[in-house]
């Protein structure tokens, strides 16, 4: 328990509307390392938090293109170069035959990139998170909404930020340690 560091400040809200408005005011006030934790998706909350677009789409695109290239390379090498076999008069490396495999490998690698890219961007798997030590945070999977501001935020101040979140109507506002 020695040498603990502040991770951030967590505030509890009662409703989706309350956390949406709190998120808008927090980002409008200049905080940048803000996150929201809710029991269900709240439309527009990502915009209120001023979160940029996810780079996941670009990762998936790269995964898909890699699948296309790998499939073509594989079939070109196997059917066209390494083990050429003529079957019922079809050209050994004919584009018609390669389409289904190319499509499947594109979908496979794009899908795998989507899942594991999402894990990577979220820094998952992860067994513990400092926010779990907040005393009412367990209700995030039930009926409460939480807003967090991390200590790395340039505007973070362990006294002023607590006051600010309380002024927005946050309850159980507490500093969470790492």
């Amino acid at each position, binding site marked *: 328990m020695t040498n603990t560091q502040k991770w951030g400040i967590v505030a509890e809200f009662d409703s989706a509307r309350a956390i949406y408005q709190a998120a808008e005011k927090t980002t409008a006030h200049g905080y940048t390392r803000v996150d929201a934790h809710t029991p269900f*998706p709240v*439309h*527009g909350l990502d915009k209120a938090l001023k979160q940029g677009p996810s780079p996941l789409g670009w990762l998936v695109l790269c995964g898909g293109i890699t699948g296309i290239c790998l499939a073509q390379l594989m079939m070109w090498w196997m059917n066209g170069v390494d083990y050429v076999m003529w079957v*019922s*008069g*079809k050209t050994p490396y004919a584009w*018609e*035959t390669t*389409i*289904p495999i190319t499509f499947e490998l594109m979908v496979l690698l794009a899908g795998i990139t989507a899942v594991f890219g999402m894990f990577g961007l979220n820094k998952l798997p992860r067994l513990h998170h400092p926010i779990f030590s907040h005393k009412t945070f367990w209700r995030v999977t039930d009926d409460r909404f939480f807003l967090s501001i991390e200590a790395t935020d340039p505007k973070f101040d362990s006294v002023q930020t607590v006051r600010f979140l309380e002024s927005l109507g946050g309850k159980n506002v507490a500093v969470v340690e790492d």
Partner: protein
Amino acid sequence: MTATAHHSAQSLQQLAPNVTAKVRDGDLAKAQLALLLIGAALIGAAWATGGKSFFFSYLVGYMGVLGICLGALFFTMIQHITRAGWSVVVRRTAENIAGALPVMALLFVPVLVGSHDLYHHWMDAQIDPAKPNYDSVLAGKSAWLDTNFFFVRAAIYFAIWIGLASYFRGQSIKQDESGDPAISLRLARVAAPGLLLFALSTTFAAFDWIMSLDPHWFSTIFGITYFSGGVMAFFAFTILLTRWLGSKGYLTGAMTTEHFHDLGKFLFAFMVFWTYTNFSQYMLIWYANLPEETVWYAHRQHGGWAIVGTLLIVGHFLFPFAFLMSRHVKRHPLGLAFGAIFLLVIHCIDMQYLILPNMEHGDHAAPAGEAAHGGFAHEFGAYLHTISWADFGCYVGLLALLGGFVLMNVRRTNLVPVRDPRLAESLKFQNI
């Protein structure tokens, strides 16, 4: 919120008082008249200059535009059977497009008049074994490919389509008055057998009106390839129509970027589905390599059609796939409108590819056998020689006529189902 489904639904007036529910009296009348006149003039000009091949040009335009109406009927029923919430503000437009099917039945008359020119391969086939030019394949198919039965079937198809379109549109308009949620539940139930009838009638109509141009040939997936292109064209047409209505101050506030984004996704999806079905057909025929099946593609290796096949792979798949992939394009008014216009043009070329290579007479038929191995310029030249301006003239003319009649429907009813139980959900709809 969703509890309104159990009570009489909230009306558009209550949910969004600033949205115009109905086109003002007399408004858009000029546009409607102009579209009808342009349509009639273009088809008249095509008829006057088209010569003997006019009926082929007309069939290209007609099947292209019919696909849009059938796509609208399909969309309406799919929204009901899935009890979709997001699409309520789009559904009335689809109902109004499908509501033009009675006019499409009238516009089918030139195809009937020209049927002996179009379908002479089987209508004039010799199925008497005693005669020297006896065609045993067509004799075997003569139970289906019978001239009188062909006309009867056309009547059955239109009866199904018009019946379904009028029922779904009529009930929806009735709900505008009563706000009765039971109507939505009933339409969801009717949509199930309705879609079954729709699928069978559409696939057999595609067999009758396009596939039988080459009556020895057959492909069981053919109806779906026609359907997929038609539904894609329906989404393109709907995007452009609703954008245009938006520019006149209608549907704005009801249809948002979110709805256009979803229409764009559907446009993309059915464009890809067209590719999927066409490739499925091509690959199986290519693999099996049976002369009775490959003959259809063999016809499409001559007279510049090989280059059109390549053009369709690029224009009906590769380019729009890359172009419409991004959500930013689908959410951008001009980006989506460009994609829609582009795919409507390509849809016409798709119809040419399906219909025109079977044309053997007329004053712009290509010399047979040449251009199979020519360069791009040579092949494209051969394609330009084979087609006629009348193909595009009939297509654009019929599109204009459809636009005019759809506008007539739009002006008569509310622009959205104003008391649909899921209207609130649709107005608030957001993509995540």
